Every structure is written in C-alpha cells, then in structure tokens.
C-alpha cells in the first residue's frame, strides 16, 4: 500500500519539468551532487569533531560542551545544505531513489541519528559543567558519540551505495528485497 503510494508520488515527481531539467541539464545534476558530497566536510566534519572530542581523540584541551556549542552553527548550516541538495537529488531521480533499498535504509539510519543527536543534546545539557575539562566525556555521552559516529558512517556508506545497481528492482527476484525496496511492479509479476 505505502509502496504503491510512494511509487505514484515518484512518478508524479518524475513528470515535473524541473525534475527532468535537473537531470538533463549539462552540469546541473553533477553540481547538486558535488555540493551534497562536499558539504559532508562541513556537516559531518563538524559533527565528527564534536563526537571525537567526547571520546577524547581530538582537542582534549578545549572544554567539550563549549566546542559542541560553538560548532553547532556551522554544523547546522552544513546539514541544511545537505538536506536541500539531498531533496533535489531525490527530486531529480525520484523513481530510482525511492525504489532503492540503500536509500530506504539510509533514511531509517538518518532518523535514528537524529533521535540519537536529540538524546545526546539533552544529556549534555543535563550533565552541565563538572566534566567539561576532562579529556573524555562521561560514559553516557561517550556512548552517544560512538553511536553517532557509527550511524553517520552508515549513512555515508549507504549514500555511496545508492548509485550502484546490485539490488535494483530489475536485478533481484528475492521477494523480501523487492518488498523492502518497494519494487511494486516486479513484486506483482512474481
């Protein structure tokens, strides 16, 4: 049901003139894609600096919560750019992306990463002060930082998998994968 609706939505997007222009334009798709990838340095770059600080691998002489607070703005600028360019990339190739197993897992990991970030922030605010100058943050925050590092590594890896066609609808007949990837037509044909 939801797979059918998503596919319908994807077909509707694909029919939009701007979606087609984005793909057919000389460099437009490449530029959006390059911006999406290069902004990793700003978004995930800042985030990893904060996470690594919590584990005690970087900038141990800088108060941890101050670093997290100061890098919040550049990081959010990065994530806003990532989100906009990412949405444009989906808009440009909606059917491939929505029927991509990797894209779907990536979205789940993204949600988990944001929940983790939210919990992490709340914990950091609650544990204010005392540990700030310790080279390693308290255990709860350290765990949060490690989870964040792993989740975002997963997000980047899955993002990199999206353009590959190993489990594209036409390349698999495993019903579970077809269902998870939302390959409605192939599933009906089985």
């Amino acid at each position, binding site marked *: 049901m939801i797979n059918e609706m998503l596919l319908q939505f994807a077909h509707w997007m694909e029919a939009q003139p*701007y979606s087609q222009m984005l793909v057919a334009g*000389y460099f*437009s798709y490449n530029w959006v894609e390059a911006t999406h990838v290069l902004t990793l340095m700003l978004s995930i770059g800042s985030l990893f600096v904060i996470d690594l600080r919590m584990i005690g691998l970087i900038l141990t002489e800088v108060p941890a919560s101050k670093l997290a607070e100061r890098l919040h703005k550049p990081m959010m600028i990065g994530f806003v750019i990532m989100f906009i360019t990412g949405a444009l990339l989906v808009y440009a190739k909606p059917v491939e992306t929505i029927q991509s197993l990797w894209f779907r897992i990536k979205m789940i990991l993204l949600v988990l990463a944001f929940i983790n970030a939210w919990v992490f922030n709340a914990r950091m605010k609650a544990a204010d002060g005392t540990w700030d100058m310790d080279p390693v943050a308290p255990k709860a925050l350290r765990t949060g930082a490690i989870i964040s590092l792993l989740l975002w590594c997963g997000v980047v890896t899955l993002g990199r998998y999206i353009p590959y066609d190993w489990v594209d609808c036409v390349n698999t007949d495993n019903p579970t994968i077809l269902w998870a990837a939302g390959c409605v037509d192939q599933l009906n044909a089985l």
Partner: protein
Amino acid sequence: MNNEKKWSDQEIAAIGSSVVIVGSLVLYWVLQFESTIELLELAYGSVNLFNNPLVF
C-alpha cells in the same frame, strides 16, 4: 609593533608558498569557470543554467 619585527625564515617560506599555491589555485578555478561558461554558451546559446532545450 609588528612592522619593526624581523621577518623570520619560517614566515617568509610560509607566505611564499601560500602565495604560489593560492595564486595557482585561483587561476585554475577562474579558468575552469570561464571554460564552463563557454561550454554552456555553446550548448544552450546563452548561459542559462535552468532553461534546457533538451527538455523544452
């Protein structure tokens, strides 16, 4: 105060290498920009990033 200070070896080397690297990279990007504009003009007749004759 700074002006009376002696130029140290490390600082001259740093400025020298930065100027060379920044200079060549800026030149590279300007040339890239120009050739891209030319290519787009050839392709579309005018520089128009979003009006694509292949579609319309």
